[in-house]
């Protein structure tokens, strides 16, 4: 064996040579953004020395402004659940645009099986079905919702994997179909008044509990299971994955099904949280979910990124939204600013790719 080859140094496993994980950069960005808002709060004349992060009311038992922290994570939790699925789809080098309308359609469908029969002693004014669908146990709306998600995901996956329709087109079609289903389901009327147990799964901080538990589960799945490894392999080099004997088509269908089931679950929770389901729900959710993934360092070329990155990306988006409100930036400016941040994240991603290639 030639020992003169350059760049070779024996068979040692050197822990120090592992590269700085990308997630650290996002965490750093998150901290910087928080600091910026904190400083803006101090220097902007109309802010009256408020603090973004810290408690300003001199309570003994708290350092942070818990109310704001809770709102930050609560307002990204439901879209965050969608983002967990979108992350997996993007890692296979695909995209899923159908998740927002799927949230609405699932919310409508799930809520129809989660209604209570009597509201303040009177029959439910928004009842969609007869009494047979009233006061069902909470598992019914959950299972119905997840099944609907699995069904939509299977269609997405089949069109993309077997009929070779580009993911962008296939899920754009599904985007319109799902919005149509949401409108058609109850003729455009809201479906409201859930049972107590159904209300509970979306109440208070429950969406955050769901988001973080699912994030933990999918982090483990992506990292420590064959499913996760094959998902990365397909996004990294689909041809290599195929030649290695991975059933790429079947795997893609599975990824799209899981993504749609997560979006559907977000719909089930959103309906419970809002205590109503309306056909217009979930507007722009698919885009915010994609934005979370992209800000979290998921490469749109596939093969790279992690669930932790997406969770951090969700936090970045949450902090930015909350921060803009905190410095009293108008909603229209907020949208423009967030759009710019998403574009900046993608530019950064491509810059990183070029440097690594």
């Amino acid at each position, binding site marked *: *064996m*030639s020992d*003169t*080859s*350059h*760049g*070779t*140094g*024996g*068979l*040692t*496993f*050197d822990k120090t*040579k*592992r*590269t700085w994980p990308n997630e650290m950069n996002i965490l750093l960005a998150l901290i910087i953004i928080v600091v910026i808002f904190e400083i803006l709060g101090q220097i902007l004349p109309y802010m009256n020395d408020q603090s973004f992060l810290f408690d300003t009311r001199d309570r003994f038992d708290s350092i942070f402004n818990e109310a704001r922290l809770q709102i930050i994570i609560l307002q990204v939790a439901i879209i965050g659940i969608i983002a967990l699925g979108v992350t997996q789809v993007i890692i296979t080098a695909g995209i899923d645009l159908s998740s927002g309308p799927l949230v609405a359609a699932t919310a409508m469908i799930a809520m129809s099986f989660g209604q209570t029969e009597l509201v303040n002693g009177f029959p439910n004014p928004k009842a969609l079905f007869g009494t047979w669908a009233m006061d069902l146990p909470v598992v019914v709306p959950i299972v119905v919702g997840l099944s609907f998600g699995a069904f939509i995901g299977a269609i997405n996956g089949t069109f993309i994997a077997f009929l070779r329709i580009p993911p962008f087109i296939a899920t754009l079609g599904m985007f319109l179909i799902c919005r149509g289903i949401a409108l058609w389901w109850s003729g455009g009327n809201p479906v409201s008044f859930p049972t107590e147990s159904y209300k509970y799964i979306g109440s208070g901080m429950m969406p955050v509990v769901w988001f973080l538990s699912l994030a933990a589960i999918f982090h483990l*799945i992506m990292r*420590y*299971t*064959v*499913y996760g*490894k*094959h998902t*990365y*392999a397909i*996004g*990294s*080099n689909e*041809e*290599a*994955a*195929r*030649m*290695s*004997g*991975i059933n790429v088509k079947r*795997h893609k269908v*599975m990824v799209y099904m899981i993504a749609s089931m997560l979006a559907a679950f977000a719909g089930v929770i959103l309906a419970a949280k809002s205590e109503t389901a309306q056909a217009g729900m979930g507007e722009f959710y698919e885009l915010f979910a994609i934005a979370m993934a992209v800000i979290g360092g998921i490469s749109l070329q596939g*093969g*790279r990124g992690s669930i932790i990155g997406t969770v951090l990306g969700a936090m970045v988006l949450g902090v930015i939204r909350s921060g803009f409100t905190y410095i009293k930036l108008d909603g229209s400016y907020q949208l423009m600013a967030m759009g710019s941040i998403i574009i900046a994240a993608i530019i950064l991603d491509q810059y990183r790719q070029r440097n*690594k*290639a």
Partner: protein
Amino acid sequence: MSEDIVLKTEELTKHYGGVHALVGANFEMKKGEHIAIMGDNGAGKSTFVRQITGVEQRTSGKVWLYGEEVNFAGPLDAREAGIETVFQTLALADDLDVPDNLFLGREKTYANWLGPFRLLDYKGMREATMAGLEKTGVKIPNIRNSIRNMSGGQRQCVAIARTATFHSRLTIMDEPTAALGVQETAQVENIIRTLKEAGEPLILVSHNMRQVMELVDRIIVFRRGRMVANLRKEDTNGEDVVAYITGAKTGAEFEGAA
């Protein structure tokens, strides 16, 4: 049929629509033999390899591996039967590290009842990777780096190290050094010599005459989809082989073939 024959094909044929990419290839390979397949671009070398390795389905003909007739439905079947292939286009996933690539599609796992969510045995795969690399003499500084950050030679070595890791019964290399520099080529050639010493049979598809003359026992030449020569290294030389490749000469046993 004798167990000593590693691989035998009979009238192996592949048509892509109207294009006859491979016609009636009769091939035989003995234990421990290293055989080179040569020919011009489009002569049918890679097509021949793709039929044996199950990447494509042959139009007609038969294939035997160690005396057993085989019909591979896909590349994984061929791999399970013991045919390990280093493809011309590197079949590596850039974003994964060395053990992940070595074990892609056949990971070491536990808790298999979890189906697609069965758990990866990272430690086992790392140890087997180390053993495989050691066996082939491949040196890679950090096997947990993603493949993207490695040189062409290192990547090729990773692809080749697969063969050693899985105790293959037949190794096929499709132009393993085509994209490599001088030093990296030497590294790959050394690995091939190691395989020869270990008595591992090898089919080498190559354009590199010097390499072929140095490394193999027998040379098969393809031209326009047909086998036109079957030469023992001792009985031939570079000029002779070139004559077959260009069609100036055709082997006696293949008269009328091309």
